[in-house]
């Protein structure tokens, strides 16, 4: 499906509004939209809502042999998917430019910044290490996917718990979560991306552009930073010329925003930890707000009841009587009974097999073992305490 094209009047209006420092939803130039972080029931599953943009991140782990060049380090694997659910412009199974850009930026932000201690992921050097896999899915695209993806990824990594392992010589025992509590990953710092969109040849900038603002932008500057004011990565795209003081100003704004967002993430993690410890309900179902449209008062809807009794009695009178009652159970052996005899095999047996059946049944005495089933596939054997079991195999 194609996305709706942007009309000229929308473009002109948006640029005019930006010149007057007005945004479509009434935000200020440096304001972020409402950020909401919620965690699922599994460790490592996180949904981030940045206004209407929604991103889901899932972290999982696996024991694999390490890379030859780095035998003592674990492996981190990042993947970002743009699902067609997010926007009609995304086509399935097509590596669009946007998806490549987002993937590269996510990798640079999280891998090159060394925010996760990969040495602690090593189990047996050179043989087994943990591979941590971070999958980010975009559920709805309303602008600024990179920020939402980076927040989701770092929250999910902080939330994730990997299974506990013990090593005895060369044997590795992996404990399930019931046997031993899983351990969190060791995270040094939380790098978060902040996006700045530039308009009208770099003279105006906006933080956290929404989808329509993104369509009319000239260029984009993405700064990944942590709360200790360390810049993890900077990327400028769109080919606009940025002045030195513009970039410095952006990094100052980014540091303020990053500290706010980091606090939000930590609060969300703390809440989740508290609820899990107290044994309360956690997970996505609890974090969805109950939007109250279903509790509006309505007038009672009248239900057609006029001829319910007549139709019911009609049905009762006109139905046939039930089939013959079920036969009472037949006690076959100690602890085994049989109700009914089952239907005769209607698949067309050969004559030879039928002959085989008959001598069998004649031989059985009440004390001995009885084979009930005629089925070709399985042997049904009833063991008596006193007698030895006699297996007859009719496998063909």
């Amino acid at each position, binding site marked *: 499906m194609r996305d709706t*094209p942007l*009309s*000229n009047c929308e*473009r002109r*209006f948006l640029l005019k*509004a930006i010149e*007057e420092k*007005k945004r479509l939803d*009434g935000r200020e130039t440096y304001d972020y939209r409402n950020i909401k972080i919620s965690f699922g029931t599994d460790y490592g599953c996180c949904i981030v809502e940045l206004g209407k943009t929604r991103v889901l991140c899932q972290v999982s782990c696996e024991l694999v042999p390490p890379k030859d060049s780095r035998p003592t380090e674990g492996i981190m694997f990042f993947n970002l998917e743009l699902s067609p659910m997010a926007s009609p412009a995304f086509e399935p199974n097509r590596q669009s430019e946007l998806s490549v850009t987002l993937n590269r930026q996510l990798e640079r932000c999280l891998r090159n910044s060394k925010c996760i201690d990969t040495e602690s992921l090593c189990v047996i050097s050179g043989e087994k290490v943990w591979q941590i896999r971070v999958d980010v899915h975009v559920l709805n695209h309303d602008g600024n996917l990179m920020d939402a993806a980076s927040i989701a990824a770092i929250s999910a990594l902080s939330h994730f718990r990997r299974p506990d392992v013990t090593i005895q010589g060369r044997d590795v025992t992996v404990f399930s979560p019931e046997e031993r509590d899983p351990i969190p990953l060791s995270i040094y710092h939380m790098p978060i991306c902040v996006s700045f969109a530039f308009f009208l040849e770099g003279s105006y900038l906006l933080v956290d552009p929404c989808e329509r603002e993104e369509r009319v932008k000239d260029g984009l500057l993405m700064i990944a930073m942590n709360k200790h004011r360390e810049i993890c990565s900077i990327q400028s795209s769109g080919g606009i010329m940025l002045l030195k003081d513009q970039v410095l100003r952006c990094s100052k704004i980014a540091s303020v925003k990053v500290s706010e967002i980091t606090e939000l993430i930590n609060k969300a993690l703390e809440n989740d930890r508290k609820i899990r410890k107290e044994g309360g309900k956690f997970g996505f179902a609890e974090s969805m707000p109950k939007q109250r449209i279903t509790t509006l008062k309505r007038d009672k*809807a009248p239900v057609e009841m006029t001829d319910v009794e007549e139709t019911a009695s009609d049905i009762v009178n006109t139905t046939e009587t039930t089939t013959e009652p079920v036969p009472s159970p037949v006690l076959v052996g100690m602890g085994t009974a049989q109700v009914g005899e089952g239907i005769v095999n209607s698949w067309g047996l050969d004559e030879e097999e039928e002959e085989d059946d008959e001598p069998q049944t004649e031989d059985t005495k009440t004390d001995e073992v009885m084979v009930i089933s005629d089925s070709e596939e399985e042997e049904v054997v009833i063991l008596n305490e006193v007698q030895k079991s006699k297996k007859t195999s009719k496998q063909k």
Partner: protein
Amino acid sequence: MDTIHACFKEKIGEVLLPGDVFSFSFPESGDGTIKTEKIICGPGLRRNGEEVKVCKSGILRHKQPNMYWIDSQQRRYVPAKGESVIGIVTTKAGDVFKVDVGGSEQASLSYLAFEGATKRNRPNVQVGDLVYGQFTIANKDMEPELVCIDSCGRANGMGVFGADGLLFKVSLGLVRRLLAPQSEIVKDLEKIFPFELVVGMNGRVWVKAKTVQQTLIVTNLLETCENMTSQQRQTLFKKVAAGFF
């Protein structure tokens, strides 16, 4: 005479679901005459032999003398003949413009379907412009066609528009409420400040007010009054009007 009308009248104003059936049993009248009743089934109702079936969920409405339809809510537009919509021109292809109307296919708009257009005198339409037009052909088997003139050849308000102002999308139910002859929403909005408004049946609305700020206010008000009762809407508008002056 009223068997059919009586069947419908019971359910006017009630919520019906797809699959509900109105079946009519005609009693034998004494003198052997059969009275014919004419009923117009609007959107959401479909005749199936001797019965009328409901195919969309919504509330049954009635308009005198004999029109019934289901008032349902959706956001995706399906082109229908005779409806006026706002379209965005995407390409020029030969003698025809391709216009995006929000449906599954782009509609085609001929160069000559404008007032005063001839082969020599082409209309001034660029890619990305907004056009307000009516469907002449709109069914599921063919590509829809738009025109910007009425049957007499006059523009009658249609054509290219919107040099300034903002275009946004709302649900189809809100659009029908705005286009109703005595629309309360439009009347309430007028009291705040003057503005120009173009409403397309495909859910697209174009607004222009004196300043950018006022245009943004009208846009946000229209987007939020989708799910409000009239009382909530009036209190909200009063608050905005008070805060403005």
